[in-house]
């Protein structure tokens, strides 16, 4: 049974290795956990998941795999959840109310429905008559008015166990597959910092050492200086107008917050696709323009370029001269994009659209081809991979975002 669980975890995207699995078995053999589903859950997670970003994936696999199996644990333990639920309600309910519950299908039914609801429900809920939340008339939740209500998370911690920890999916926000929002902006910032600097090793200051040793009458006196920091120059090109605005704002804030880490940070806006003109101030976009050729001349190829845009438009806007929705462009978007990509060898495109939709939108596919496949989703993981791409140039990507260097990579 556990071998299948191990395989399911790997299939579910949790990077577990055999030694970790063996250490779980070792821990089970050493009787670290007693016979309860919850303890087994914690033990398994501790031994096999080494990053809180994978907790949510682990929870999902665990829930799926051990569905029904908890009953097995329950048989082994003296503490039967239906029993304490019964005790609880005996205190809270009148004889008449209890009879009504029995008429509704009894305790097993109630627990089964609870589990179902929890699976369907996302997030916190208040009011209403179906979901689990507060102050409603659903049988589940707290402060409710339904006589068969199961109080959750209000009194002692015992009740909270009614919610199986792995089904509550508390770690969803830590999964790096979700789109960037204000919640995980901070994490993204950390990734960016990692991009901008690495290590803080010290190196020998040869001149300083000779000087100091001489002053010290020939007694050796070593002098060290901090190693020079990696100074990254970054050019942001952001798609504005329409549905992109919140994402663009998130990105702008993100990179401005990380500004101190870059030697230079410049940004320009475009609408849908870059053509011969870009602009810096969105309010005066029609009066103060910057020539794209001028941008190419001003910023030399050691700038790294980062596009943020959904690349979702009519394919004509890329392929045809005059295809722009705002003005007459003499040369097609494809020509301009090719020019930009040729000038800046290190370039990535961040796309907030969900990855599974990319293949269905023709313009995204064209853009992806134009940037040599260097398009990444606007998620923590995608940002991470994009930064790695910008930093080290071409790499081979595996499924979990871990990378192996291509043999041709000289750095």
């Amino acid at each position, binding site marked *: 049974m556990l071998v299948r669980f191990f395989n399911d975890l790997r299939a579910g995207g949790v990077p577990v290795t055999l030694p970790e699995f063996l250490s779980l078995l*070792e821990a089970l053999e050493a009787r670290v956990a007693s016979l309860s589903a919850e303890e087994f859950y914690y033990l398994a997670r501790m031994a096999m998941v080494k*990053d809180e970003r994978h907790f949510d994936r682990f929870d999902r696999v665990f829930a799926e795999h051990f569905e029904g199996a908890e009953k097995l644990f329950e048989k082994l333990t003296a503490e039967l959840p239906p029993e304490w639920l019964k005790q609880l309600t005996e205190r809270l309910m009148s004889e008449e109310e209890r009879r009504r519950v029995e008429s509704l299908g009894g305790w097993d039914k109630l627990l089964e429905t609870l589990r179902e609801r929890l699976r369907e429900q996302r997030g916190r809920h208040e009011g209403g008559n179906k979901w689990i939340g507060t102050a409603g008339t659903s049988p589940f939740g707290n402060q409710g008015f339904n006589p068969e209500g199961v109080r959750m998370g209000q009194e002692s911690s015992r009740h909270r166990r009614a919610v199986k920890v792995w089904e509550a999916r508390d770690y969803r926000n830590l999964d790096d597959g979700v789109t960037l929002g204000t919640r995980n902006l901070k994490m993204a910032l950390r990734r960016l910092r990692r991009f901008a600097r690495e*290590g803080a090793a010290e190196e020998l200051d040869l001149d300083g050492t000779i000087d100091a040793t001489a002053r010290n009458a020939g007694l050796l006196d070593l002098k060290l200086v901090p190693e020079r920091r990696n100074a990254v120059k970054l050019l942001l090109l952001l798609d504005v107008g329409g549905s992109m605005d919140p994402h663009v704002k998130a990105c702008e804030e993100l990179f401005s917050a990380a500004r101190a880490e870059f030697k230079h940070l410049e940004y320009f806006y475009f609408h849908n696709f870059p053509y011969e003109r870009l602009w810096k101030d969105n309010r005066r976009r029609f009066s103060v323009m910057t020539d794209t050729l001028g941008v190419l001349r001003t910023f030399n190829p050691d700038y790294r370029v980062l596009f943020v845009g959904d690349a979702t438009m009519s394919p004509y806007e890329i392929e045809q001269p005059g295809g722009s929705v705002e003005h007459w462009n003499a040369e097609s978007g494809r020509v301009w994009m090719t020019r930009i990509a040729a000038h800046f060898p290190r370039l990535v495109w961040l796309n907030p659209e969900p990855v599974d939709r990319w293949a269905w939108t023709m313009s995204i596919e064209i853009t992806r081809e134009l940037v040599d496949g260097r398009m990444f989703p606007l998620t923590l993981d995608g940002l991470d991979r994009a930064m790695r791409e910008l930093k080290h140039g071409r790499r081979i990507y595996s499924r979990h975002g871990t990378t192996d260097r291509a043999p041709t990579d000289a750095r």
Partner: protein
Amino acid sequence: MSAARFSGTDSYVATPDLLMAVNAAITLGRPLLIKGEPGTGKTQLALEIARALERPLFEWHIKSTSKAQQGLYEYDAVSRLRDSQLGEEKVREIRNYIVKGSLWEAFESQVQPVLLIDEIDKADIEFPNDLLRELDRMEFYVNETRELVKARHRPVILITSNNEKELPDAFLRRCFFHYIRFPDADTLEKIVRVHYPDLKSELLREALTTFFNVRETPGLRKKPSTSELLDWIKLLLAEDISPEALRGDDPKKLIPVLHGALLKNEQDVHLFEQLVFLNRRAGR
């Protein structure tokens, strides 16, 4: 293997999952990697384990310039060279210039010690990789004196990380992992009770409500954590603030008294003020 079990102390409230993680690490002799929001008691945990199990504690605080070698030993070549220029007698014995690190000292301990490797993510990316063999086999080789240092007892090793750098897979494989979540209201109340047993329940309830309100403010740069709550309550007690003052019915006072203990930068204070102001207006 010792059968010591950790079950929390009178000054540290540990959740069942944390206890399980610590005990599994002790039983199997694996290092335990602890992550979590700053101020949730990661470092404190090691001190409490050492105290509860009555074991000696060795601490190794990592800085951005730390090298793995410094935890084992350092050969102070410079002072040996200097001594040789001054013609000192002890220069002949190389042992005089080997300075033991915390890991070596922990390995030499007569009883099973607790070793804390604090904030491992501060160091260089390669740092954890340089410790693989030492943590796995609990031994290392001193090149200068050609001796093998082996641990007398496998120390209980606790490693904390603030997630500033990703740790290498090979290193993670050798550890158990626990993520300390921010405590829920009940646990938090227990924690405060442990630190301030004489606190009036009324004040505690008001303080916790205010605290969770502050924490739930969207967009805060640094959310206040457990340690900040404890500091704040200490201040409230010192200033003898009444529960009514905390409830803040006074519209002139927009933000909680002594907020400096909870909100640590001016943007956060400003943001919080604005939100409270908007809420008040909407409430009218």
